[in-house]
């Protein structure tokens, strides 16, 4: 079963949430997941675009409780 780490990047401005995500991905195993919480409006488009560019997997993306929640699975 994949492990999931939550990164609370609420209040961080672009590209802070992306950088926090990348920092977290470096320390988890392939197949494990990171859930990023972000209030940065650009994250909803920027993070999925980055995931596609570098070939990780987007598990889900939702907006609730005033922030975006984006779940990424490390693929490589």
């Amino acid at each position, binding site marked *: 079963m994949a492990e999931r780490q939550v990164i609370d990047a609420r209040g*961080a*401005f*672009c*590209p*802070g949430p*992306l*950088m926090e995500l*990348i*920092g977290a991905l*470096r320390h988890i195993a392939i197949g494990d997941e990171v859930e990023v919480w972000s209030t940065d409006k650009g994250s909803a488009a920027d993070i999925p675009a*980055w995931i596609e*560019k*570098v070939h990780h997997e987007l598990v889900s993306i939702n907006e609730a409780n005033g922030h975006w929640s984006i779940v990424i699975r490390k693929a490589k």
Partner: protein
Amino acid sequence: MASNPLYIMLCSGEHEKVQMAAMMASVGAVSERPVEVFVSMNAILAFAKDATAEIRYHGGPFSKLIKEKHAPDAMTLFRQGREFGDLKLWACSMALDVAGLEMDRLVEELFDGPLGLTKFLSDAEAGQLVTL
């Protein structure tokens, strides 16, 4: 397919432009795009070692907002770009000479070394050049 390299010529010491250069360089590098930054003119003064944000960054209304809202620090973004991606920073050798600066007066572990404009422009023919 390999990404088209991005070359950024940072000449302005204006905070907003230093910030934009740092954002472009870091995001480009972590997106598997080779990035090289050539720092010259007033911009080299923004990279002084051990400077506080107040001393390092000068600009207009947006500079104040960047500081007040605690947007990511430009030097931190450059460092993250180097750590997470293929980012190189070069200090313009002419700017160093004119300002009387040595490399050890600049932010530590950020630069790959001094470089001349001729070499940077020659390398930049292989990619996209942006000047700030």
